């Protein structure tokens, strides 16, 4: 880490449990407080500078839930900066700030952000968003309020230059959110697949002497043509979950092979995450 780099959020989707401490710490810091040079006060209600978005996958009883904290991405190529005519600027340390004087009345700037990270403060008539608590970082705080209050480590900030950030992303498998927006977001995410990919899950069971039992240790293979896309071994409950599939990716072949030569082959259509329920073999 160098003092000269860019402040960046590191966000781990798998560690977020929707406790909302980040959202509330942000409100605690900004509602009723004016931080000159950084931001006007946040309205008491409604602002979501740190927005935790929920994604539920699958169907009862095979479901999982992930949460994605989604603040301003502090983009290097921020469309809000471009649209603002000087009302929004990116500081040398990477923090994108809205100048409330220059941005007054600029409701259009809310729409400029493809991440939906800019709120409209009706009362003050200004667009507002996450400042990374620049007023705190500038006075010696090591992290913004949301990060300080995060109990799971889902939220972190680092200060890295672009090359260091790229290395970190490569070694730790971090990804930007929606790079297709082309805004060069500086925030980096871990486990985004929990949000963006889908799964095929089921419970393998077999009947022996009239008694149905879970089948542990069965091999489950998902393939498309000759290509094996995913494999899993069932757990003690016969459960398997083949994750990381693209939504809407179409037909797959699912093969289950259990003990004593028992098995089954199924066709699975993947539009979104799917629970196959009990898979008898």
């Amino acid at each position, binding site marked *: 880490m160098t003092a000269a780099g860019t402040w960046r959020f590191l966000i781990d989707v798998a*560690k977020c*449990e*929707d*406790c*909302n*401490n980040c*959202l*509330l*710490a942000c*409100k*605690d*810091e900004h*509602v*009723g*407080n004016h931080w000159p040079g950084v931001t006007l006060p946040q309205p*008491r*209600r*409604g*602002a*979501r500078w740190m927005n*935790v978005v*929920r994604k*539920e996958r*699958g*169907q*009862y*009883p095979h*479901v*999982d*839930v992930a949460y994605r904290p989604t603040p301003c991405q502090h983009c290097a190529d921020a469309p809000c900066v471009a649209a603002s005519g000087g009302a929004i600027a990116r500081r040398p340390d990477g923090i994108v700030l809205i100048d409330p004087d220059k941005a007054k009345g600029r409701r259009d700037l809310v729409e400029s952000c493809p991440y939906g990270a800019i709120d409209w403060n009706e009362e003050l008539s200004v667009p507002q968003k996450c400042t990374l608590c620049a007023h705190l970082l500038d006075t010696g705080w090591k992290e913004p*309020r949301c990060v*300080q*209050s995060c*109990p*799971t*480590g889902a939220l972190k900030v680092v200060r890295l230059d672009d090359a260091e950030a790229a290395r970190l992303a490569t070694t730790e498998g971090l990804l930007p959110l929606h790079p297709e927006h082309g805004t060069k977001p500086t925030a980096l995410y871990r486990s985004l697949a929990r949000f963006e990919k889908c799964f095929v899950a089921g*419970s393998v*069971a077999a009947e022996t002497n009239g008694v*149905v*039992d*879970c089948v*542990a240790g069965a091999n489950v293979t998902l393939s498309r043509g000759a290509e094996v896309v995913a494999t899993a071994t069932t*757990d*003690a*409950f*016969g*459960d398997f979950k083949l994750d990381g599939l693209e939504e809407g990716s179409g037909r797959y072949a699912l093969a289950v092979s259990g003990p004593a030569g028992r098995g089954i082959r199924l066709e699975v259509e993947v539009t979104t995450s799917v629970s196959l329920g*009990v898979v008898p073999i």
Partner: protein
Amino acid sequence: MALDTAKVSVLLYGLEKLLRLTARRHPSFAARLKEKDLVAHVRLRDGTQGRTFTFEGGVVRSRAGIHGDPQVVLSFETAAIAARLLDPRRSQLDFVSAAKTFQMEALGDDENVVWLSQTLNMLASIGTEYGVDAGNGVRRFTSNTNGGVVFVYVKDGKILRITPIELAAEDAEGWSVEARGKSFSPPRKSTVNAHTLAWKSLVYSPDRLLTPMKRVDFDPDGERNPQNRGTSGYVRISWDEALDLVAKEIQRVKQQHGPGAILNGSGSHHTWGALGYWLSARLRFFNNVGWTPVAHNPDSWEGWYWGAAHHWGQSARNGGGETYNTVEDLLQNCEMVVFWSSDPEATSGVYGAHDGTVRRQWLKELGIPLVHIDPYYNHTAALFGGKWIAPRPGSDSAMVLAIAHVWMTEGLYDKSYVAERTVGFDKWKSYVLGEDDGIPKTPEWQEKETGVPAKDLRALAREWGTKKTYLAAGGIIGFGGACRTANGIDWARGMVCLMGMQGLGKPGVNMGCLQQGTPVDTRFYFPGYSEGGFSGDLAGTAAAVNVYPRMPMAPSMNSVQQMIPRLKIPEAVVDGACDGYPTDPRTIEGQFFRFQYPSPGHSKVKLYYKYGGSHIGTMTETNRFARMYRTDALEFVVNQSIWLEGEAKFADVILPACTNFERWDISELANCGGYIHHAFTQMNHRIAVLQHKCIEPLGESKSDFQIFLDLAKRLGIGMAFSEGSSELDWCRRYFDATDLPKAISWEEFAKKGYYVIPPLPANRRDPVSYRWFAEGRAKDTPELTPLPGDYTHGFRNGLQTQTGKIEFESSSLKRFDPDDPERAPILKYVPSWEGPHATELYAKYPLQLVSPHPRFTFHTQSDGKESFVNDITDHRTRIGGRDWWIVRLNPADAAARGVADRDLVTVFNDRGAVVCAAQLTGRVGPGTVHSYESCAVYDPAGEPGRSADRGGCINILTPSRMQIKKSHSIAAMSCLVEIRKATEEEVAP
């Protein structure tokens, strides 16, 4: 003797000088002296020595001898006694003892006596520095909440921010646990809950009560119009008017009706602080008034108290278990964790903030498999994964029996443990196997009851029976969930029975989920709030054990022997009679003493002094409460509340209380003591806190202490209530009662605001819970209970049960009522009386509603009130400018009712209707719906108590029936409802 006389003369002469000097040095003290003009005599009772003090226009003068007409007389029996007690280094015990034996008396009007006493006490405290300078005119104070300790940054008398505490370099080093080749230690900071971070919005809430108020059509000397409670609106009145009115009503009711006519009750919780808590100031006040208390049911512990305690004792913990050093044992030895009705990521161990979360991340790091049994795919399951098993609500005990069946038939249990450490197994086994009723409790049998596939049940039983398993039953050991169903008693005792089969206390076989049992120092004494603060209430709190002897004070005792069970308040008030069973955790049998209301020769209640507004959101079938207020059964209702919400809106007079950020208090993080003895083992660091008075009370609001003191002075019990001490004086007295003075000076503690109690070195950590029991040794865990007389084989030998063993067949239930079909001495399956077996009702209301404790609020605290929490999307849903409570239902159930996500729907049954926003989710199966309890907002669409609530008080729908007749137990989690789209009328603003 002559020496004492001389010493008294010098001390009294010096006192004048000290008062004048202090006033010169400290403007605030000079201002204090200006508050009153009075003459005080400090004298010996026989008049042989004394000095006259004159306070006039802020100037103190004194002269030897007894002159003029005094407003206050401080009288001592002898010069020797006076010499001792006037010495600033006097012992508090000596002082209190002298007062109790009338060796010392303070005579005069309470107002003057209390003022003088507090003024003299200020001499010792003035000039102390509180809080740390944070630069730029900002001061950093400390406080404590139901969801964690905090720093409070204040500028210009206004709270800037509230943050978790990051430990300083000089604070004690933390602990670490070595397990499976890894080393685990917690971060050096405190964690907080969302409701803690909402506090700024609660302090500055538009719903804050800033002045006393009177109902517009309430006239104490004319028409009282009780029928309009809840609708008639309020007018602002002065404190003098309010206090005079309330004091006069208390006096009138006592005079007209005699003992018992005054009812007081509170919510289960309060703003944090050992002195301000409802078990402290409130009890001290009402004990000195004489009152009928609302008897609390063991609320979140129901099944444990009324059920589990009969099989393993632990009555002092309301039937929950020991919690010592299980974090280390689990990490080192456990092979699987079963979370059964346990969602610590939502309930945070009550007061544990998120300290347990980081430890459960270690669980994941070690790859220990997890199972979650809960009708809702809860937040712990969502964060950590594992197998989710979703029984129908209220069917858990059928799962218990089937698991036992698998273990019994497949030999998957600890036979020698069962033989040596338990009794009654064969009798239970015979029932489980169906030898006595012809119904083997097989996995297939339970599937019909629970909906859990037999194969899954068998797989679970086999895994559990072959792996060293921790059972997390409830949010901690006990607490919430299934223990609040119609047969929660059976579920809780089933948990004990299953552990009895697997060898509770053996390495890796125990209870918990890393929520409790950190290796902090349990031997360092700091009392929890259940020890009663300065209540001096030896009967109603745990004060007698430690606080009372360590913090010398006069005891307080209620002179009225009458109480009303909380769940039956409306029946008691409206019908004038009811019965109940007590929450008396001293012994297992304490709960058997049925009591009746009214007590012999006692008045029915006529005056209800309610503390806060929570019951409509937290009790059961709560339209009852709204309807009760609108009868004439209560002549006068006063509510002392921070916010205008819930029940407060039904009061005749409202007294505005302030939050803990606006008063002095002292406490420890998460330390409630009592029913969760050593509750701080949930925390990664033990942190004791001086809760600074960070800001002045908002508007005209006052601390509870001050409101009670102001009333007490009008009722002639001002000194009995306060002992002449201010809130800050009591903080100091409390500090002196703890082990803190051995570790940190008062001055340093006052400034810094907190002290981290160092953990013990690894070789002195507590033994693991129940290891002693499993190994047949004397108890070696640091738990004072059970009482010596409750041990059959001598102090600390065996459990509290009659046999000293885990009893599959309960001795206490055999003695009490062996033929009770609702609670047999062995666990049997009794279908929920509100569920699929209630055939007619189920046909009408086919959805089973579960309503667990809320995740983002602390009961009603931080809900509504324009709190920040309302912006959390999984707490409320904003539609049409209103924040709606959420009901979660399966997409199949929604489709069958034409309901889409975010539709406004009405959840209803014969008890009432609540309008909610629908959330469609696979986190509940078809037939189950989920909505949290503890809504703060009661907003009836029409007549209160008889129309749909738009606020979200889901407890309007829950049954008021006791789990079993011979109990005082909530069964809120057994509730049948139907859902339809809301009507225009119901949702209209």
